[in-house]
């Protein structure tokens, strides 16, 4: 996958009082960036983008599989976050490589039945990462989060700001672990003075190559919807997602940011644009059915995800635009169309699943 080099197209944001970030950016050539979850979609693409950046001296890729995009500058370390020794090992690696920036992307992109493993990886794993980073004196952390964590609710305002509480149902481990992980990152920011912690809450990623719970939902020919409900939805094109992480690594912008595409679309329009057939199901029936199918391992997601087919969960990207200078290249509609174009080829098996 070819990513456009978009760095030059961003306007320079107003410098926040010439903070400690400046020297980091200027001390360029010796920068070492560590990426956890380096074999994931975001991780491997980010490694690829960082490989091409002359200002990055070395990339430390951390995962249980080597990233396919690894090049000359990348050093791969196999660390399993679910092991109790992960913390010590990670701390050693970060210290030895003199890592200055850590991008924490080691999260699952879709709900899993292996709840205990997911908890170890995401919630406890993030704690390992944060403790190790504190020991190794990593000063900057960029952490992945999602706007889904705000939770879909009829009482949500149409555009959720970053200060809105995360109200996704904590009974669902997929959300609870990620909310806990975000809390860990914030605790790191509190405990380490002068640390730069950037949390990027991305809208659901959509695009030609990414695979997650949303793309699986839209990959069905017949797509279930909730009868009588048609919420506005919002996506983020995968390229914009990668660009946002690159931008957060290049610039020092502490804080939490919604990273979203411009524009919203009703879910029914998304399904129509994707060339799918929507089948409305009354939601009480759909919830029971999905619970059963999820138990039987036949559904893509548990019943808690059905709320996102009924109610609003759309975030406001104004803060990222103003403070970070992040300008998405694709609107929600363009992201849907781009996904659709690739999905058509997958439908007729002209395009095989790419393994990145």
């Amino acid at each position, binding site marked *: 996958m070819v990513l456009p080099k978009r760095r030059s197209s961003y306007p320079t944001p107003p410098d926040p009082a010439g903070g400690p970030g400046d020297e980091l950016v200027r001390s360029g050539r010796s920068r070492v960036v560590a990426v956890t979850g380096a074999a994931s979609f975001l991780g491997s693409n980010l490694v690829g983008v960082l490989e091409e950046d002359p200002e990055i001296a070395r990339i430390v890729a951390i995962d249980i599989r080597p990233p396919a995009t690894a090049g000359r500058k990348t050093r791969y370390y196999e660390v399993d976050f679910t092991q109790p020794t992960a913390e010590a090992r990670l701390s050693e690696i970060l210290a030895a490589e003199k890592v200055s920036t850590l991008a924490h992307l080691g999260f699952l992109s879709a709900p899993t039945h292996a709840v205990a493993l997911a908890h170890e990886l995401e919630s406890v794993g993030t704690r390992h990462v944060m403790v190790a980073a504190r020991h190794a004196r990593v000063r900057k952390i960029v952490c992945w989060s999602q706007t889904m964590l705000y939770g879909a609710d*009829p009482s949500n*305002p*149409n*555009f959720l700001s970053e200060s809105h509480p995360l109200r996704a149902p904590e009974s669902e481990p997929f959300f609870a672990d990620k909310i806990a992980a975000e809390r860990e990152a914030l605790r790191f920011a509190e405990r380490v003075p002068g640390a730069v912690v950037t949390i990027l809450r991305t809208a659901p990623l959509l695009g030609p190559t990414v695979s997650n719970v949303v793309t699986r939902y839209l990959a069905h020919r017949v797509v279930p919807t909730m009868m009588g409900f*048609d919420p506005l939805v919002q996506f983020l094109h995968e390229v914009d997602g990668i660009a946002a992480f690159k931008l957060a690594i290049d610039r020092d912008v502490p804080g939490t940011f919604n990273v979203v595409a411009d524009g919203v679309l009703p879910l029914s*329009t998304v399904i129509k644009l994707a060339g799918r057939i929507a089948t409305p199901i009354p939601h009480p029936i759909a919830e029971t059915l999905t619970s059963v199918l999820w138990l039987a391992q036949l559904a893509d997601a548990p019943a808690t995800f059905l709320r996102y087919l009924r*109610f609003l969960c759309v975030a406001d990207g104004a803060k990222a635009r103003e403070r970070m200078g992040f300008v998405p290249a694709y609107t929600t509609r363009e992201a849907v169309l781009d996904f659709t174009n690739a999905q058509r*080829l997958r439908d007729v098996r002209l395009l095989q699943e790419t393994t990145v």
Partner: protein
Amino acid sequence: MTAAVRAVAKRDAHEETTPMSVAPPTEAPATEPLPPSPPSEPPLSQANTVVAGRAVHEEIRQLEAELDRMIDEASRRDVSTLLGDDEDDAPRPRPSGPIVEPRRPAEPTSEPTVFETARELLTTDFYLRKWGRLAMRNRSEEVDDFGHDPTYEARVRPLLDFLYHTYFRVECTGIEHVPAAGRCLLVANHSGTVPLDGLMLRTAIRREQESARDLRWLSEDFIYHFPFVGSIVNRLGAVRACPENAERLLGKEALVAVFPEGVKGIGKLFRERYRLQRFGRGGFIRLCLRTSTPIVPVAIVGAEETHPLLFRIEHLVKAVGLPYVPVTPTFPLLGPLGLVPAPTKWRIAFGEPLDLRGYGPEAADDELLVSRLAERVRATIQGMLDRTLGERKSVFFG
């Protein structure tokens, strides 16, 4: 069917969903009357060229007519062998499209046989393609931030116009008080068990105001808990009522309507009609002070009699999210038919704008001032209601 063919078929299906982008450019030049002199001609012998040009054009037209006739004939002969679907598409001499393609009717081999047509009809792809053509027929591909869908509204507009013009016979007074541009907040009384006042207010602004502004009204939360209602009014311009949404709309210099009585307003019993309830906690005043927005008071008369509410059943329904179940002379009795509003005569009166800019944005924290201003707006609207009611002689004939 091979993979490549299916890919092409799918692409066709997608293109069909946006037919306007393909068809007109090829057709338009042929039907338009051509200009008398082509611009490329030198102006020396103008008269000559005009005459010659006309002759040439006459000839071209004749040839075109001849050609059209031939294509028409040919396509009609083709279509008669098909199974009669796409009838309306067929006679048009369109260069694109699958019907016109076999241009040689003399060769019987190129004609699709019944067997082939049947086979096409039996594939799922055929129906998927048909579905794809119909999918976006009443939807815009893009909606605004709050989900207003202009294409959908255009389809519903005849019904709204009927309700506005024929059914409720709405009369507007003081429409000139609504500013032609810039942010503005309309504050109105709320009524009707099935609140149609937001929709009618929007229709009134669209039809009566000279710049036909796009009014967005803020609607109660509870309709978004419910299937169908929330998504439909959302497409027609309703926005969920919350301070964040209102501030965002006013920040875009929009015209916004609020009903500060909220659920208490639509739940007024028949004997309480036209008696304004408490105006929330004055949130709309705080909003206007913060954003220095002028307020236009609006009195809607007639809407409160559309569903004369006798009782509210409040105990069992909170669990499903409804604030109450209305009991009207017709509602549970006649089933869903009982929800048809009574054809009352409506009057909408717009009052003089109230400018709050003098107080400054910091006045929003002054609780006393906020409640005083809210009371003032309430009293203004109550006065307008009383005056309009005094002029009214009959509920149904105005």
